[in-house]
């Protein structure tokens, strides 16, 4: 794309939300006109035409949980490479986690990450601020300074570490009310998970690996839901992984407390049996759980107990994965496979329709993250006047995962060689294409 940013685009015969086909004219960063397929003219506006017959138009996806690794581990990922992967996965906003080096616990670091994202231009980067200085869990970071910075931080998380001190967690929840912030908790009771390598259960017993019990997640969720209810604050639970957690969140929501939750694509698809390979590509935190947990997570996402899908995209350099299991770092790539896994786990199984996918991957995470101008529902995201922040998906496509072709600098995808349904063909960020014909513009 060499045209000026003001170039208009005419999406010819696209299917908004997978419904009836229509022409969509994008200009000035908005959807400015819609009409039956073949009726809108490109010549009046000088718009470029994209033949989108067979493609679904969905609002651009929002990832609440991305590790971009910059600053500090640019060998594994950079803001540039990670946001390329995001755009290719249909994402238009990613929330960049704070566990960088230096940690994103000051206005300076979050502004640096925000600027790198703006300069790369592949998608909006919203930095997540650390809750505590250095993620150490002892002293609050300058949450207000990060909120007032150019990065306008609203989501705070010590992700990778749990804010395990209950008093500190209470204070953090209370403090961010001043700027409608949310604490995104990595729920992991640290004493119950010392040395933990994988889900505690039949597999860990057989494989001789220290277990990460479900109760270590559930106990923290229960405590924090009670705290959030007590102080009336917003709490978000990162990467929910157990059936018990789904029950607890359902209970917390039934009380009217402001608790939201996300699930990762890998927890919707993979189970702890994969650890039997001892291949650390399957090592992740929280760990892969059992088939029963997977079923409960899918049901929770379907009924809205779990609000959003978030990737926990966690790139790692080869030397951090090509090792014995216990020496490997936890985490897996997610941005370029998330939609396909959601289609496989949720749409193909009849648990979620396309409006549901839009809600869980775009609208709900945007609301949780405090983004401006979030459409009230999936339907209105395609109305005239809505933001031209879109992803165009070929729902019939089938593709084989080959991590060597990924935009990420890392290759730690657990889906290597798997055949996936659905593929992102184009992504538009405020009217400007970031991906066309499946390639970064």
């Amino acid at each position, binding site marked *: 794309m060499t045209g000026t940013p003001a170039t208009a685009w005419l999406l010819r015969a696209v299917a908004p939300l997978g419904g009836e086909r229509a022409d969509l004219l994008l200009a000035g960063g908005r959807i400015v006109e819609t009409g039956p397929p073949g009726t809108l003219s490109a010549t009046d506006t000088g718009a470029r035409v994209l033949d989108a017959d067979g493609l679904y138009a969905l609002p651009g996806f929002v990832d609440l949980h991305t590790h971009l690794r910059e600053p500090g581990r640019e060998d594994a990922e950079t803001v540039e490479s990670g946001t390329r992967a995001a755009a290719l996965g249909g994402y238009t906003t990613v929330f960049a986690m704070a566990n960088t080096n230096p940690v994103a616990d000051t206005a300076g670091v979050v502004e640096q990450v925000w600027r790198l994202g703006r300069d790369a231009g592949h998608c909006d980067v919203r930095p997540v601020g650390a809750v505590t200085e250095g993620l150490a869990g002892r002293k609050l970071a300058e949450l207000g300074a990060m909120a007032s910075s150019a990065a306008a931080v609203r989501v705070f998380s010590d992700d990778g570490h749990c804010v395990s001190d209950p008093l500190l967690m209470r204070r953090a929840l209370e403090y961010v009310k001043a700027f409608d912030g949310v604490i995104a908790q990595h729920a992991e009771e640290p004493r119950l998970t010392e040395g933990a*390598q994988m889900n*505690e*259960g*039949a597999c*860990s*017993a*057989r*494989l*001789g*690996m*220290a*277990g990460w*019990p479900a109760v270590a997640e559930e106990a923290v969720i229960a405590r924090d839901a009670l705290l959030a209810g007590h102080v009336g604050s917003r709490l978000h639970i990162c990467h929910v992984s157990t059936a018990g957690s789904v029950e607890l969140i359902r209970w917390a929501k039934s009380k009217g407390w402001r608790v939201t939750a996300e699930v990762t694509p890998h927890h919707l698809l993979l189970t702890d049996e994969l650890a039997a*390979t*001892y*291949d650390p590509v399957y090592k992740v935190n929280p760990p892969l759980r059992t088939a029963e947990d997977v079923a409960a997570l899918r049901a929770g996402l379907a009924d809205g107990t779990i609000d959003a899908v978030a990737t926990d995209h966690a790139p790692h350099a080869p*030397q951090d994965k*090509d*090792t*014995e*299991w*216990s*020496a490997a770092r936890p985490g897996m790539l997610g941005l370029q496979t998330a939609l396909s896994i959601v289609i496989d786990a949720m749409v193909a199984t009849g648990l979620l329709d396309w409006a549901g996918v839009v809600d869980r991957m775009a609208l709900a995470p945007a609301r949780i993250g405090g983004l401006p101008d979030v459409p009230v529902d999936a339907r209105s995201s395609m109305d005239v006047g809505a933001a031209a922040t879109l992803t165009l998906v070929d729902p019939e496509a089938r593709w084989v995962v080959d991590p060597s072709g990924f935009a990420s600098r890392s290759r730690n995808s657990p889906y290597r060689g798997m055949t996936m349904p659905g593929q992102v063909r184009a992504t538009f960020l405020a009217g400007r294409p970031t991906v066309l014909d499946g390639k970064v513009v």
Partner: protein
Amino acid sequence: MNRHLLSTADLLREDALLVLDTAEQMARLSDRSVKKLPTLRGRTVVNLFFEDSTRTRTSFELAAKRLSADVINFSAKGSSVSKGESLKDTALTLEAMGADAVVCRHPASGAPQRLAGWVRGSVLNAGDGTHEHPTQALLDAFTIRRRLGRLEGLAVTIVGDVLHSRVARSNVWLLRTLGAKVTLVAPPTLLPNAVADWPVDVSYNLDAVLPGSDVVMMLRVQRERMSAAFFPTEREYSRRYGLDADRAATLPPHALVMHPGPMVRGMEIASDVADSPRSTIVEQVANGVSVRMACLYLLLGGADEPEEREVIR
């Protein structure tokens, strides 16, 4: 036989019996004045030990030498490994040196299985973390069969820190495959949470189990487990789960007392029990050499020349 010996869980009954029968032949050899066979002449066996274990390393070394293999001892301490070299780079180094077999002891569960993906030679697991120690289980089975004449139908009681024991895991799977009935006895803190899925009986009461046991296998209990609250004190552990002379007297007359070593005398086993006629502890060491000879022989002896073997990955 499989190409590697990583676990007893995937060992077929016929392969396990083949190891035991071959070990019998090897044991007869050690009664001769010249104890060496030319079988593995020109083959290279690497002992790759990332944990100190003089006992197991020496046993493998002796086994390989009795089969005329060239043996290289590659210990993690004082080598490039202690300077931060990765397991994979170490594996590629050994591969470049042309190792036909790698005997691997590693503190991480699954490390030998990873290694097997990186080298062409056979990998023998000599103990990986809290996962498995297959040759120990094979030598235990060999010892039981020699003493009692069979394994089928025997009641074998394994006592101690099952949670952290690679010996226990390998024994549970192998003894099950060979038809013995296994009972685990331990404080609940030292059993896996999911032990109910294992093909074993579980008891917290050693006294109740001993009179019906043909074999009692005592596991080492590391003192550092106390600090992690697995049990209150050494004294309490010893009183509830230690095998002293009074308890040993409740065993049937033919019953064996086994220990994989190293023992903590006075903790899990009393000295007079460890040194009693029903104890097989010293025999287990001798049998270890025969069983490891059998394993090396079966994994390497039947294979084609190294250069003709396919690359796994």
